[in-house]
């Protein structure tokens, strides 16, 4: 193991490649694996988008809110405006992004817990409005999509999700390399210093919040296009906030590959456990989350980075 560490300075890339391989494998297997794959990718996209914002230190609990908003935007636009699946996904991203932009203009002045709880409350408010606006949204019973993307065929829909994931991975990597990243990390490390050095904190936070919300909206739209329905309960489920967070922390924060690895591991593990422990698999799942956080507090990518630093002197 040590020799590998010494040969490769870029562990995250190895893990990333591994993750991509795991994403491609399902093409050569059956619909079941592809179905698991689609779910894993949905969570992966959410996890990456959450990580893109946390790089600035802003903790969002609003994932489920924008996810649900996006899925409703997709279904309602497809039903009422007859948008085709792809346009409806783009439309959903725009709606989520626009709302995030408007809301973000106000709430992005909050920090820490206060920002977190406000994003959570916003998500709940979206849900309550959609729940009660029966004439448009179908109320508690939700709405059906007349026609699924690719008629629900397994391989094309999986390909669509892989493409989606690759776009988001590329976007996240772009974010990491562009000046937005330096601005955001400067905010995270020391906001006052960042401010005094002339960085327009607010502008960059607003960009990051809008873009990540748009991604979350698009992920929700993708979900709606895959399963053909929306209901307030399932589209705004708190799992869409909590599971991606857990995945990111497991894989490692502040990177693109951390969320990718975390999503693949936890997603596959969940399904695997269920088949072998029909009763009580979620207990084991919870225990694994606890153990990983106790013994690998910086996630897999962070751990790899630390091993690397230990293996050789400073870069």
């Amino acid at each position, binding site marked *: *193991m040590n020799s590998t560490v010494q040969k490769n300075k870029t562990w995250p890339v190895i893990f990333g490649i591994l993750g991509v391989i795991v994403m491609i494998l399902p093409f050569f297997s*059956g619909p079941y*694996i592809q*179905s698991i794959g689609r779910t894993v990718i949905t969570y992966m996209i959410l996890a990456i988008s959450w990580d893109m914002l946390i790089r600035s230190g802003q903790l969002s609990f609003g994932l489920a809110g924008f996810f649900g908003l996006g899925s409703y935007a997709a279904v309602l636009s497809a039903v009422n405006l007859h948008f085709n699946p792809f346009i409806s996904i783009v439309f959903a991203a725009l709606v989520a992004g626009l709302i995030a932009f408007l809301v973000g203009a106000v709430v992005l002045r909050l920090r820490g817990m206060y920002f977190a709880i406000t994003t959570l409350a916003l998500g709940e408010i979206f849900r309550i409005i959609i729940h009660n606006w029966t004439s448009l949204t179908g109320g508690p019973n*939700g709405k059906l999509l007349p026609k699924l993307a690719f008629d629900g065929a397994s391989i094309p829909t999986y390909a669509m999700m892989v493409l989606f994931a690759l776009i988001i991975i590329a976007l996240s990597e772009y974010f990491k390399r562009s000046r937005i990243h330096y601005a955001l990390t400067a905010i995270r490390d020391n906001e006052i210093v960042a401010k005094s050095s002339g960085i327009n904190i607010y502008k960059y936070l607003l960009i990051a919040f809008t873009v990540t919300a748009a991604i979350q909206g698009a992920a929700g739209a993708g979900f709606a296009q895959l*399963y053909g329905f929306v209901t307030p309960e399932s589209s705004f489920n708190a799992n869409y906030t909590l599971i991606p967070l857990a995945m990111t922390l497991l894989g490692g924060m502040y990177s693109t590959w951390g969320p990718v690895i975390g999503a693949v591991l936890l997603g596959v593990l969940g399904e*695997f456990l*269920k088949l072998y422990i029909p009763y009580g698999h979620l207990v084991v799942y919870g225990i694994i989350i606890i153990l990983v956080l106790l013994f690998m507090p910086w996630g897999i990518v962070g*751990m790899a980075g630390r091993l690397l630093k230990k293996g050789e002197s400073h870069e």
Partner: protein
Amino acid sequence: MSKKLSALTMMLIVLFSSVFFLTSCKGKEEKPAEPIKFGGIWPLGDITGDQAAKAAQLVVDELNANGGLMGRPVELIVIDSELNPEKGAAAVERLATVEKVDFFVGGMSSGVHLGQIPALKKYKKVTMWTGAASSTAETAVGEGQDWYFHLHPWDYNQGNSYVEGWDDIAAKFSNISIDRWFLAYEEGPFGSASFAATQTLFSDMEIDGEAFQSAALGGGDYTAVLQRAKDYNPDVFIWAGYAADALPIMEQAKAVNFTPPLFIGAPPGWPSDFGDSALAENVTLYGMWAPSISKVSAVSKKFQDAYEAKYGETPATYFAPLGYTSIEIIAKAVEAAGSVETEAVIKALKAIQYESPLGETISFSPSNVISNQGFRNQKILQWQNGNQEVIWPFEFATAEPAYPFTR
């Protein structure tokens, strides 16, 4: 050191999971298709799904003890839906392509079912569904799906049967008046569909309603809705929520001194200890099955005895006899058809007259959208001396209605 170890462990998990990917898709393909396979999908963490799956296994054991179906052993593979649409849909894919089952059974929760319908439509295997009352799910299944059999009544079926039931009861017992209704409904799809259905079906009567947040979804305070109901002064008060609401509603109704002449609860299941409370007395309820049905139905008694003998508990929800029905009805059709071919089984199912452990004998016929709907009726029961007694339909009645509700 331990950190390195755990990193190594995670590496192994990565490798292991990719191996799992490969084996699960390649390895099981050559499995011989000798037994007749049923694939079941229920939420095993929930009492409804848990008991439905157990009851389904009971039929399989009984069939195998009698030499199987057409000389072939019978196998049931149950996958947990986790009450999650994505997981429910993945379970359909797994059962169809990896386990290669012959029939799909299962079902509880309309939300999960909506996510499964596209996958079920892809395989068009004979599907016997025990859950999902929402007519949105019926629309999603759509017309002309001959392979789809739905046992659980749709929301409007239930509403219809209540109208019929109360008309019957009011005709037979002249002292019972049912002119003014108040419906307290939980704000989710279950409750609001009940309210919408009741409003249209009882349109010739005075009717009002109010939503509340069910304890199952974080609520549990009914004082506001009870206060509204009390001010309305109805002949009939119905609450449509979940089992967790049952006893607290009674307690809070007593606290605000609300005693309508008919106090009806319409949750999908009751807490098993509800009957122990003095407040349960004379509460009327809707349900598909209760242990008291075994007093008037031999089929129900046989089912209940077998279930109790095997699992050492009384079935607490009607999902247990529904789960039993889902397998046995297909098994009977397979026997009649002499084949497991989809076409032949569908034909046999359409012709079947099945004596169910829920009491009534059912056959399949079209409902509003789909071609094969099984049960349509709910029963009207009443808590009397800690037991659920049937008061309607009169053919299954185990007791006369106690009226008016007092405490």
